[in-house]
C-alpha cells in the first residue's frame, strides 16, 4: 500500500467534496466489563461540522479518543478518508495497523483537549512549530510563518514568546487550537474545549472556533455543552445515549423538535 512506501505522500484525499471522511463500522469499545460503544456505526462527510451531544458517560469522548488513536477499538473498523485507521489491508485481509500506517492516517486528524495539554517546557511559538517541523518536515521559517498566521487567527500575535503558564486558560486553549491547525488536519476533534475555562474566558475561545468553522472547510467533530455554539456552527447534531446514536439531524431540528423523548429530556436538562 502506498502509505508503506512513501510516508510523505498524502494518503487521504484532501479535496473537500462532501464525500465520506469518517466511517465507524460496527465499532465496539469496552472498558473492563463496561461496554461503552456497542457496534456503533456512523459517518461524517468531509467539510461538515458535527456536534456530538448526550448525557455524561454516553461515550462521546471515547469516540474522539478512538479517532485520535489514543485508545483502540475492541471490534469493528474506523476509516478516515477511505483508509483504515486502526487496520491495514494486507493482501485482502485486515490486520492491525502498524505504527507507520497509523501515523500516516493520523496526520490528517487534529485534536484540542479539555485541559489544553500544551507543552509547558516550550514557548508558544515552539508549541505550534514543533510538529510541522518534525512531522511534516517544514523548515523553521516555514513553520514559524505558518504559526504567525495562526496566532493572528487566534488573536495572540504578541504572545509568541511566552510560556504557556504565562497565559490565561482561554489564551492557552487558543494556542492549542493554533497548534492543532498548524498540522493542516482535515478533521479537528474538539472535546469540551471550554469546560475547563473560567466563564468569562469561554466566549473568546468559542469566537475563534466559530471563525474557523465559518472560514475554512475543515471537518469538525465537536463535543460540547455550549448549545448556542453548537447551533451556530453545526451542520449536524448527533444525539448519543449509551454508546448509540439515537437521533441525528440539523441543529434546528434536534434543538427545536427532536423526535426522541430521551433527546428532549437531555436538552431540557442542559439548556
Amino acid at each position: 500500500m502506498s502509505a508503506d512506501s512513501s510516508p510523505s505522500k498524502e494518503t487521504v484525499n484532501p479535496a473537500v467534496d462532501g464525500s465520506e471522511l469518517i466511517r465507524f463500522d460496527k465499532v465496539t469499545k469496552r472498558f473492563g466489563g463496561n461496554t461503552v460503544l456497542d457496534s456503533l456505526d456512523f459517518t461524517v462527510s468531509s467539510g461538515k461540522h458535527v456536534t456530538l451531544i448526550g448525557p455524561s458517560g454516553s461515550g462521546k469522548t471515547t469516540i474522539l479518543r478512538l479517532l485520535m488513536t489514543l485508545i483502540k477499538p475492541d471490534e469493528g473498523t474506523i476509516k478516515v478518508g477511505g483508509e483504515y485507521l486502526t487496520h491495514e489491508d494486507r493482501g485482502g485481509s485486515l490486520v492491525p495497523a502498524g505504527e507507520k500506517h497509523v501515523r500516516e492516517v493520523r496526520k490528517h486528524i487534529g485534536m484540542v483537549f479539555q485541559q489544553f495539554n500544551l507543552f509547558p517546557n516550550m514557548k508558544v511559538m515552539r508549541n505550534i512549530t514543533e510538529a510541522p517541523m518534525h512531522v511534516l518536515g517544514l523548515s523553521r521559517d516555514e513553520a514559524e510563518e505558518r504559526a504567525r498566521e495562526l496566532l493572528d487567527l487566534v488573536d495572540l500575535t504578541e504572545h509568541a514568546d511566552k510560556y504557556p503558564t504565562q497565559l490565561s486558560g482561554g489564551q492557552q486553549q487558543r494556542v492549542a487550537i493554533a497548534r492543532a491547525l498548524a498540522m493542516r488536519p482535515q478533521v479537528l476533534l474538539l472535546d469540551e474545549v471550554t469546560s475547563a475555562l473560567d466563564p468569562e474566558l469561554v466566549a473568546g475561545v468559542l469566537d475563534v472556533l466559530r471563525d474557523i468553522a465559518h472560514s475554512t472547510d475543515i471537518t469538525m467533530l465537536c463535543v460540547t455543552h455550549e448549545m448556542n455554539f453548537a447551533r451556530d456552527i453545526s451542520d449536524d447534531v448527533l444525539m448519543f445515549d449509551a454508546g448509540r446514536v439515537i437521533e441525528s439531524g440539523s441543529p434546528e431540528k434536534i434543538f427545536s423538535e427532536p423526535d426522541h423523548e430521551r433527546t428532549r429530556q437531555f436538552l431540557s436538562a442542559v439548556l
Partner: protein
Amino acid sequence: MKWDWNAVSDFMPMFWHGLLVTLEALALGAVLAFVLGLVWAMMQRSEHAAVRWPVMAVTEFVRNTPLLVQLFFLFYVLPEWGLTLSALTTGVIGLGLHYSTYTAEVYRAGIDGVPVGQWEAATALSLPRARTWFAVILPQAIRRVVPALGNYVVAMLKDTPMIFVIGVLEMLGEARQYSAQTFHTVEPITIVGIAFIVISYPASLLLRVLERRLVR
C-alpha cells in the same frame, strides 16, 4: 599519637593526585550513571515485554548486590572473558553501572510525574517517538528530578573509596599508600576526610537550593 605538620605537607602532592582521580572517577561515573539510568528508564517504558523484563531483572540484580562485589567481579572476571580494562576504567564502569540502577528509579518517578495529557498531545500531533521523549517528556521529567539525581552524585562520591580495592589510587588509596610508606596515618586520613566534607557539604547545600528552584 602526635600530629605532624611535616607529614601533612609531605602528603599533599599525593593528596592532590588522589583528589584528581576521585573527581575523575566521580565525574565519569556520574555521566555513565545518568546516561545508563535514562536508558533503563526509557526501556522500562517499552511496549515490548521482551525489552522491559530483562531490564527490570538486570537493574534489580545490580541494585541489590553490593558495589564491592560488582567491582571485584568486573576487575577479575572481565579479563577472563578477554576484556582487560584499566583499574580506573573498571572502577568508573562499576560505579556508573551500580548507580545507574538508582538513577533509573529517579528518572522513572520523573517520567511518571509527567501528566498523561502530554503523551496524548504528542500522539495527537503524531510526533515521532524520539521527539516525544526528548522534546516533550524528558525536559519536564528531568527538571523535577535534578536534585534527586544530584543526591546520588553525592552518595557516589562517598562510595568512590571503594575503587581502591581494585587498585585505583584515589584519595583514600593515596592516604593508605602514604601511611604504609611512612607510618603516618592520622594526617593523611584526616585530610582525606576533610576533603570529602569540603566537597560534599556545599554540594548538598547547592542541591537544596536547586530543589527549591526546580521542584514545584
